């Protein structure tokens, strides 16, 4: 058992796709239990019985379209017109607009490429310190994971069986808390900044007019979701249709001939996620049958007593996990195992989800595989070490907020009934 586990880990480290490693593990397990291996196909086919799954391709596609359009420019212009007069305003704008953009496009690094590339020169020009700017942009790339309709949040809901509406509600305060903490730091760090733009009614109007077509999107989608008017999959369909309508028919920013390419690119990502999801339906089922969560709990229980130390161990574990696995695979693989263990320690599944995702947000900033570090290093042509050093103060702040979110469940749970 341990030997096979090690062998699979070796294949994983040699670069075999994660889905094949998971499938191999599940097949070995079923084989030993003398269960016919066509169970793999039956479980994989179970993907077609998951009702909310359709939200994944739709939101991914909408996010790809949005990041190919000029809506990042318009978002920056509008928020600058509204907030540029405030000390640290541009930094705070960057945080807020990146969070919004990430919530809609998923934290796949696209925020740094699409928005960061605009914000970084603007920040430099406005007289912010370069190191601060690098850190800020790199950090902002994964901010917003906790806000609806972020894909990781939806995926956690699908995997854990927790109501996605509750997760969307639970993410609001912790997400805002992280934002406010970073915004406060940006304000404090730049309290002596001189170059502030003046408020200009004309610029505000012009910026609003320019983004008039995109402004309804967050209002309709978020309003629809939070008021319970839309189900998640309906919100996803509305978003995808609306984004096509605005960017391709009204604004004509993306030519129709680009549509097949964008569809293909987004579906490659969806395929990669669904492959992992499909095979882990099988492996999860096997592990639950084999009583793995119970055994895991027994092991954890012999080292960890009480909820407080469990949460501590969980944070350490998730930090390491986030540093080596991408967020989607981490959710699909780990949530089914730790969910039952966490509930033994009295951790609410919704709270667990928020803690999980908040900690994963840090994983984007942790070497060796922190995605944001790589994308920033690639985009701004700096070494990973330099980027990491610039990100460090933000990392510490986020770590602090994650600890607070973990040990203060009410932050996540107060908005639920």
């Amino acid at each position, binding site marked *: 058992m341990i030997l096979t586990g090690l062998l699979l880990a070796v294949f994983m480290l040699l670069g075999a796709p994660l889905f*094949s490693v998971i499938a191999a593990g599940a097949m070995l397990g079923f084989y030993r239990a003398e269960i016919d291996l066509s169970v793999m*196909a039956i479980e994989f086919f179970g993907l077609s019985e998951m009702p909310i799954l359709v939200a994944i391709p739709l939101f991914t596609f909408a996010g790809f379209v949005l990041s190919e359009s000029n809506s990042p420019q318009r978002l920056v212009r509008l928020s600058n017109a509204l907030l540029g007069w405030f000390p640290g305003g541009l930094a705070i704008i960057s945080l807020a607009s990146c969070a919004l953009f990430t919530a809609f496009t998923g934290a796949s690094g696209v925020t740094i490429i699409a928005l960061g590339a605009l914000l970084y020169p603007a920040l430099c020009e406005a007289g912010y310190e370069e190191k601060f700017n690098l850190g800020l942009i790199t950090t902002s790339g994964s901010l917003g994971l906790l806000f609806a309709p972020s894909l990781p949040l939806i995926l956690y809901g699908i995997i854990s069986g927790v109501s996605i509406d509750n997760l969307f509600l639970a993410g609001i305060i912790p997400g805002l808390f992280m934002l406010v903490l970073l915004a406060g730091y940006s304000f404090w760090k730049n309290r002596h900044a001189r170059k502030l733009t003046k408020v200009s009614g004309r610029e505000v109007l012009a910026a609003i007019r320019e983004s008039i077509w995109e402004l309804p999107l967050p209002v309709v989608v978020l309003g629809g979701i939070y008021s319970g008017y839309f189900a998640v999959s309906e919100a996803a369909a509305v978003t995808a249709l609306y984004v096509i309508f605005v960017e391709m028919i009204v604004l004509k920013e993306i030519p129709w001939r680009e549509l097949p390419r964008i569809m293909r690119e987004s579906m490659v*990502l*969806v*395929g990669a996620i669904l492959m992992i999801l499909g095979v882990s339906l099988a492996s999860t089922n096997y592990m639950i049958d084999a009583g793995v969560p119970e055994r895991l709990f027994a092991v954890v229980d012999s080292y960890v007593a009480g909820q407080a130390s469990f949460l501590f161990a969980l944070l350490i574990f998730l930090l390491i996990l986030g540093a080596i696995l991408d967020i989607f*695979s981490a959710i699909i693989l780990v949530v089914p195992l730790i969910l039952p263990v966490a509930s033994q320690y009295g951790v609410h599944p919704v709270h667990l989800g928020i803690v999980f995702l908040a900690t994963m947000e840090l994983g984007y900033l942790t070497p*060796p595989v922190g995605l944001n570090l790589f994308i920033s290093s690639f985009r701004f042509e700096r070494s990973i070490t330099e980027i990491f050093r610039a990100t460090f103060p933000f990392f510490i702040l986020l770590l602090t907020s994650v600890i607070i979110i973990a040990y203060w469940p009410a932050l996540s749970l107060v908005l639920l009934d």
Partner: protein
Amino acid sequence: MGFPWTDGAIRLAVLWLGLVGGIAASRDRKQIAIDIVTRALPVKVKRITDIIAHVFTASVTGLLAWYSLRFVQDSYAFGDTLLSDWPAWIFQLILPIGFAMICFRYVLRALREFIGPDL
């Protein structure tokens, strides 16, 4: 809303999309994998580890394709239906096809690493 089976049809479409996307991801080398180790390896060693990883993936997906085919055969033999009265095997056929194509992709890639880029 609409026909009683639209919901089921959409969900089946997502499954198909997942597998077709999975085939495309294999083709584009965009399957999610851990590359911290292999990225740091020297080219010659990486070629060997790549062959091992590709052969492994090809075997696993080959098995998945084979057992999916058995699943589809069973479903055909039992006359399972989906979306009111459509034969289920039509919809399930994407499983063996998808896995077989992914398997093919990795066999090809392993061979290419083994023989060289001429293949």
